[in-house]
């Protein structure tokens, strides 16, 4: 026959159960809070991840326009394409997407990713060349601008 539990054992058991319940309660509250935060953040998250996927396309549009042959510069067709690219950029602006400021700005690793460093006299690190534009949505950086940095006075 199983031994009857003592009062101490039972008290311990109650203490264990109470603690376990408190822990579960706390977990539940925290999970709910995080869930709400996630739902709130979800809209921005979807927006940024879609834009992130689109950025390489924008890059290529810009590259394409940079490489328009001289004799075609005044071509009406090219002008039309330029309009399309401009429209794309305007749409992004309306969505709250901004380009990260680069050349001439003080280097900031929160916004810029340095891939090169040029010597210079002085000790202020300044962005001297943009290799790939960066984009941000409000305070959130969607893609860091890839830059070269130079030391200036």
């Amino acid at each position: 026959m199983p031994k009857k539990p003592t009062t101490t054992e039972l008290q311990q058991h109650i203490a264990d159960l109470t603690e376990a319940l408190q822990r579960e309660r706390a977990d539940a509250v925290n999970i709910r809070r995080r869930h709400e935060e996630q739902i709130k953040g979800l809209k921005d998250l979807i927006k940024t991840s879609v834009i992130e996927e689109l950025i390489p396309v924008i890059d290529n549009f810009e590259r394409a326009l940079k490489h328009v042959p001289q004799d075609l510069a005044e071509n009406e067709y090219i002008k039309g394409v330029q309009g399309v690219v401009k429209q794309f950029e305007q749409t992004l602006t309306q969505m709250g997407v901004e380009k990260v400021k680069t050349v001439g700005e003080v280097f900031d690793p929160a916004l810029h990713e340095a891939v090169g460093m040029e010597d210079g006299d002085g000790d202020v690190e300044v962005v001297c060349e943009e290799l790939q534009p960066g984009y941000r949505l409000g305070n959130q950086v969607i893609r860091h601008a890839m830059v070269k940095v130079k030391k200036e006075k």
Partner: protein
Amino acid sequence: MGKIIGIDLGTTNSAMAVMQSGKPEIIANTEGNRTTPSVVAINKNDERLVGQVANRQRVTNPKNTIFGIKRLIGRKFSDKEVQKDLDLMPYEIVKSGNGVKVKMGDKEYSPEEVSAMILGKLKADAEKFLGEPVTEAVITVPAYFDDSQRQATKDAGKIAGLEVKRIINEPTAAALAYGLDQKKEEKVAVFDLGGGTFDVSILQLGDGVFEVLATNGDTHLGGEDFDLKIVNHFVDEFKKESGIDVKKDKAAMQRLKEEAEKAKKELSTTEVADINLPFLTADADGPKHFEYKLTRAKLVELVQDYIDQTEAPIKKALKDAKLTAKDINEVILVGGMTRMPAVIAKVKEIFGKEPLKGVNPDEVVAVGAAIQGGVLQGDVKDVLLLDVTPLSLGIETLGGVATKLIERNTTVPTSKSEVFSTAADNQPQVEIHVVQGEREMVSDNKSLGRFVLDGIPPAPRGVPQVEVIFNIDANGILNVTAKDKGSGKEQSITIQNSGNLDKEEVEKAAKEAEAHAEEDKEKRAAIEARNQLDSAVYQAEKLKSDSKDKLSEDDIKVLEKAVEAAKEVLKDDKADKEKLEAAAKEMTDKMMPIGAKLYEKAAKDEENSEKDSDEKPKDGKDKDDEPVEGEVVDDKKEK
């Protein structure tokens, strides 16, 4: 009472996890990433940067950016590995007593202090994530770490304000993440191919311990080598095509690098990856594009040497453990590179068995550490074992439809209530028929019991409010109560074994539901359409009788004709959804102008009680507002 977090303090990247309600969950850092680069820097403004942000300023500040600190922790300056790093690392490593220190800014820091900076960021991010202070942790180290390296890692935790409850081996953590425990006698091989290092460990489980029998590896072999190989291949191909060497073009190289990583990942699931990089670079002749198809076969050809390099350390580890590949019971994969099919194939070839899958190989070590933390914290599961309802539970509503109140896989104890109504005028009683199963129709599900709630005061259909409450206690005992809100009368039934189903029964039910999903949906839709038409007829008749003196004779005739036509459709048992819906639409189309006229008149007269008309939409166009009436009727929208 804080939680014990599990930390995988890696050479290149670190990750962390925590137990939440008995399940491990990866903690994302404040930037939203599930891993954090193990990089620390101090910039010239004396700001401390940790993680990705430190990485991004590395080239501007190479002397003060510390990475790979794990290679130095707990080492003596005279150690072979340290001497090797002296040349490899761009930052300064200095002798300090017997040990080493690294220089950042004007100061010298011990590897413990640098590791503590990484741990400090992880701690802060975990606190933000959990919303409570974090003071205790389990940290993993490689199996080959000696006492001094382990002690140094523990000290790093202390400096960061973490009490390190336990230091565990990375392969042990991986085994824990896969639920392997010490109860069974087993030999496990852990194959860990990460970003920069390769480790293999042979573990012995049993007798209440994880014993590391042997370890081996290659400290300079990992995913970064694979990527470099692919990039170089792209550079060669591009040169062949265009004659241009892009190696010096940093922007182009960055694009190639990103594309190489993407292609490598893509080729884990597809056979061909399309590389399309327009305007990669330009020369005097104009822009040059890179278009290339990288096949899985070509990728394997490129990196086969690296994959083969894992074989010798494995063989050696087995030999040291005095085992052969056949003695190994389980193989566990750790590290992002183990997603590559060719790597998996190699592992299979060596061990002659399928490796365990399921846990993200980048996160498996942190997950195991969190599980260890959960064990140390005291296993909650032992005291409170939570069960789930294996099948959905609900009641029968008009037309034999099974209306679910509690969905399958809901964790119990739980309760749910919903308000239903009557299907006919002056209906004195409702029958509550409790059913279990996944199918849409009651006849396809299992009947658990039924009871009658009577004494409902006479009222038009849809008016009485009968609240049905389902309550399942922790033992799976289901109690169903029906309560007439008007009279306060209630009836209930208790069903003992709603959860007592064996696995096969549950699987069968779920499979059947899936197989019949389409057909069931159609059936249910047809019944819903029929109920809607029935309700429209009711509304029309009510409109006619309620407002007899206000309606013109023509209007009454229109209504009567419409009702007759609709009833004709209802008579046909085989009428499909489209036909029923069309009839309902016709009905409401005819009613709408009549109803509108009544309202206009009412507004003019300013006599009609507004409340009354609000409660009874006459046009029936807004399905959501209108109760779908039934024998027992769902009064609210589901969900």
